[in-house]
């Protein structure tokens, strides 16, 4: 075993890694314990609690910076701390924004649920009044069967993937808990056949009891006793099951029937998430369980509504400290629309993008000061203490290379950063204005966002002529473009041209708020508001005229209205041209902009099926050895054994004849060694095989063959021979 462990390459490459050979056969072992001091640092940085926004928690501290200045070559760990703190600050801001948005979206539903519970609870309380002794009686009360129905809310999640709704149900639970309810948040795992109804009741009790159930029997009597405790019996118990359709129908049915026996004594409410239709519970649950439910129906918002809100609050409103490049935006849009359509995957992709940005971009920590009111001062302070190497990093950013002004020094860099911040604020204001129109016409915000981040589009908009040309282009191909996300802004402008007066007026009110920082535009908006007010007055007149079918007057009024629409459209056009400068067109954008779509894609979607095959087929690209240089396509004996075997396997069909495979392998190993002998340049394999007697050479080849087959089997690319076909091996993967 020791031989396996300390194989030559592991010994050479892993050198200092002194692992015990015995550990390879231990199912598990402790490699090392944490170093005490480091643990504390780690814990502090890992903890999400107590994170403060602002100056105190910013990465720079004079002491640290002084140390770096004196050292001139500050350790990477210091930078890592800066990056990590910047990530923590910014991601916590984004996360709280996400949580806030999702909570707000669901608040209406949450209040609906709460109202429903309160109404039903007060009704039950008014009908049945029981003492503690009556509640604790182990037999059911004789009463009207109608009262034995459990009030149940089926929440239609409108989402085949329930992963998004897990958080919604958690939030609902917290909301109900905060509003005088006992809540148990259960899932399909609690209603499995393996643990049966006992598991369900245990899970219910575990969630309701704040203390562990040490030694207590998990039954309804325990629940009743708990409920009779002081200050508990004046609240309803809400049992939430987020993915009802994934539960075992029999276990859930029995659970419902059992609770219904106690529902008069303990007021229990069910909230069940249903992914498909309202018919699903009827189809799934046994009829005797179903008759104990008193159903009501509630509906959650769709994923696309949630996505719109997320884009608005996360990608646009918080964009000045971390933002996405155009390619990354398009990738994320496609990932959402084509991959799985869940908000959860989108958020995890965003988080990964954020972490990759801070870990890969060395000057990304400067983005943190975008959050501060006095950013300029903060940057100036920071640059004084920043080591020269880091300053050079800033100047070497791709967007700085063409910028001659920056060579002026710290002042010019700080000025550029301020410009960047201001530009992002303007950009986000214009995009928010676009979103207001998109909300009216029910367009996807993500499409507009992608277009708004496109630097090419901005270059195109540069001259007035080309802008008109672009819009005209948009007219012709609007349908085709909208499907690919391009042309959304054009569609927004068209929407404005066709908006009724009331909607236009509302739109301008919203724009008024969004454009506060752009005084020039804000004044224009106000002017247009007053113009519209006059049109609005005329609208009553217009309607009267319409009633008496006076077409001539209508056309006059509508003409006036159209001119107002045109003016609003022109204003938006002007806003876009002047203020919607995509981040990637700005100097120093690399500090806050994540653009590396390949890194994100590979971190997010591992495709082992394709990649492992490619590893084997193109091993020369990883192991850049001289023996591959002549002709990578031909098989040479010095190639990796498994790679040779897998390439040979490509020539077989669904099944591989072991004998033929072995012979081909042997031919590759031996024939080429002869060739190399002729050339007088033996390959590494032949060099070792040459002095061996034939039997040992044969053993070596057979050993290599067996080893390679085992490796392919571990990779899941082969199935071992069956008894029926002992001489054939089955291929699993076909094509990449």
């Amino acid at each position, binding site marked *: 075993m020791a031989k396996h462990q300390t194989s030559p390459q592991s010994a050479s490459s892993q050198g200092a890694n002194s692992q015990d050979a015995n550990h390879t056969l231990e199912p598990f072992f402790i490699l090392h314990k944490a170093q005490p001091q480091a643990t504390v640092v780690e814990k502090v940085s890992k903890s999400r609690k107590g994170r403060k926004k602002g100056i105190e928690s910013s990465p720079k501290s004079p002491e640290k910076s002084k140390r770096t200045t004196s050292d001139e070559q500050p350790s990477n760990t210091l930078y890592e701390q800066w990056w990590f703190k910047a990530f923590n600050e910014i991601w916590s801001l984004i996360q709280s924004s996400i949580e806030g948005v999702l909570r707000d979206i669901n608040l209406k539903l949450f209040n609906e649920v709460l109202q429903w519970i309160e109404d039903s609870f007060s009704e039950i309380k008014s009908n049945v009044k029981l003492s503690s002794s009556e509640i604790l009686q182990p037999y059911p009360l004789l009463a009207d069967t109608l009262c034995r129905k459990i009030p149940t809310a089926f929440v239609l999640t409108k989402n085949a993937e329930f992963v998004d709704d897990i958080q919604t149900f958690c939030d609902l639970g917290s909301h109900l808990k905060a509003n005088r309810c006992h809540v148990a948040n259960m899932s399909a795992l609690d209603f499995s056949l393996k643990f049966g109804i006992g598991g369900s009741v245990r899970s219910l009790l575990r969630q309701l009891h704040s203390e*562990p159930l*040490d030694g207590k029997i998990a039954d309804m009597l325990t629940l009743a006793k708990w409920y009779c405790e002081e200050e508990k019996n004046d609240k309803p118990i809400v049992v939430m099951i987020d993915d009802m359709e994934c539960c075992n129908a029999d276990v859930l049915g029995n659970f419902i029937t059992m609770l219904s026996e106690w529902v008069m004594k303990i007021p229990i409410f069910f909230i069940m998430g249903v992914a498909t239709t309202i018919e699903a519970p009827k189809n799934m649950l046994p009829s005797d369980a179903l008759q104990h439910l008193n159903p009501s129906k509630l509906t959650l918002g769709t994923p696309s509504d949630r996505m719109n809100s997320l884009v608005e609050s996360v990608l646009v409103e918080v964009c000045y400290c971390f933002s996405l490049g155009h390619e990354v935006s398009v990738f994320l849009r496609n990932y959402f629309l084509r991959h799985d359509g869940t908000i959860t995957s989108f958020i995890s992709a965003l988080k990964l993008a954020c972490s990759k940005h801070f870990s890969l971009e060395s000057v990304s920590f400067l983005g943190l000061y975008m959050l501060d009111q006095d950013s300029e001062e903060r940057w100036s302070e920071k640059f004084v203490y920043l080591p020269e190497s880091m300053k050079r990093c800033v100047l070497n950013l791709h967007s700085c290379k063409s910028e001659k002004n920056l060579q002026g020094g710290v002042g010019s860099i700080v000025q550029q950063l301020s410009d960047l911040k201001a530009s992002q604020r303007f950009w986000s204001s214009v995009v928010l204005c676009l979103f207001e129109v998109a909300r009216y016409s029910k367009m996807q915000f993500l499409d507009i966002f992608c277009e708004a981040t496109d630097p090419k589009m901005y270059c195109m908009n540069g001259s007035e002529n080309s802008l008109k040309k672009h819009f005209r282009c948009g007219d012709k191909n609007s349908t085709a473009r909208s499907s690919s996300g391009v042309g959304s802004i054009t569609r927004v402008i068209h929407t404005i041209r066709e908006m009724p007066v009331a909607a236009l007026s509302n739109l301008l009110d919203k724009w008024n708020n969004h454009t506060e920082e752009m005084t020039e535009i804000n004044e224009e908006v106000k002017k247009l508001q007053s113009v519209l007010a006059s049109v609005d007055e005329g609208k009553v007149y217009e309607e009267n005229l319409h009633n008496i079918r006076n077409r001539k007057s209508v056309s006059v009024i509508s003409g006036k209205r159209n001119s107002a629409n045109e003016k609003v459209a022109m204003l938006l056009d002007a806003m876009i041209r002047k203020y919607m400068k995509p981040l990637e067109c700005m100097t120093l954008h690399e500090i806050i902009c994540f653009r590396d779509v390949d890194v994100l894609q590979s971190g997010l979607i591992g495709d082992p099926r394709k990649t492992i095959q490619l590893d084997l087929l193109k*091993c020369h690209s990883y192991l850049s050895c001289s023996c591959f240089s002549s002709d990578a396509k031909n098989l040479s004996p010095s190639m990796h054994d498994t790679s040779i075997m897998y390439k040979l396997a490509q020539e077989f069909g669904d099944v591989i004849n072991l004998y033929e495979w072995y012979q081909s392998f042997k031919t590759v190993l031996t024939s080429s060694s002869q060739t190399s002998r002729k050339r007088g340049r033996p390959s590494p394999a032949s060099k070792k095989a040459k002095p061996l007697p034939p039997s040992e050479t044969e053993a070596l080849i057979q050993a290599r063959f067996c080893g390679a087959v085992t*490796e392919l089997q571990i*990779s899941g690319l082969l199935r071992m021979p069956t008894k029926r076909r002992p001489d054939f091996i089955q291929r699993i993967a076909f094509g990449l």
Partner: protein
Amino acid sequence: MAPKRKKVEVEEEEARAQVEVEEEDEEEEELAFSRNYFLAKEVGSASGKRSAARKVSEINLVDEQLLRASLSELPTKHEKEIGSLLESYKGLYSNWLFELRCGFGLLMYGFGSKKAFLEDFASSTLTSYTVVVINGYLASVNLKQVMTTIAEILWEHYKCKAKISTGKKQQTQLPNGLKSVDDIVTFIVDISDDCNCSVCLLIHNIDGPALRDPDSQQHLARVSCCSCICLVASIDHVNAPLLWDKKMAYTQFKWSWHHVPTFVPYKVEGLFNPLILFSSGHVQTTKTALVVLQSLTPNAQSVFRVLAEFQLANEKEEGMHVSELYTKCREQFLVSSQVTLNAHLTEFKDHKLVKMRRHSDGQDCLHIPLPTNALEKLLQELV
């Protein structure tokens, strides 16, 4: 004592690996039916040509011991290049640590054993974590034991913290009532928020034989959500992502994928996989048959010999009639009654040394499912 225990464990592993192969055989049979039409045709044509196809037995196989010895001493090709490839990954260690601290789980994939270099990463970079390594490639991994160890580590820190805050001495043992893995996992989840420590679970082959069942994955997913536990795992199987649903992948494990092909041989991971050239066909069967026969009584061995000699002498026959065997055995005073013979035959059938066949004349006959040369070899070695 310890080496002996290790030997027993190794034997158990081998036995398990053998069982797995047999299970896979059954699966494969089912798979053959589920293939689409064209593939099915291809399989059909391949099996049609089977008689003409070359057999593994035609390879001039060397002795298994010699082959195993060669395998263990096999020089690695491109050692230098592999070394520099692994060296290049060292530059990424700090980025990986960063991602771990950001709350992601690291999932390493790509061809080649990642065991040594992941442990190198853990030893050199994860110094602030207590690192628990799980060798998922072993079928003997017991998740309950692993979880208990993690619970003990956390409990140790939890106790220290409670002692500092309350000034009271806490119990040293884990609380009672932690009987199932589920209970232990729940315990870990409950106390993790109050633990002042960081534990890193390094799982080699999270898609390994003992961990690929849904329950184990659920337990690992729940544990990976804990604030003080982070996960670094490797996969080797191309279909490993099918182990996780979206909830597990995005909200629990929170994988950040890293493609790190190493091309290092899977020496430890493949230790218990049977060698392809010896796993099927007559070689293996001769050996196993010999082991079984040697454990039987001399009389039973002789009965088997009678049957084997008949089969060798009458290669074209479908098998030997039971009555004929009884007569011959009785003549040689090997059995005294039909009952005794039946007892021997049951033993043979249980160990698949003998198979019952319906003869063309309608009577049942006995047949040893071994090729002639294997049978000859067996008889020679049985002496």
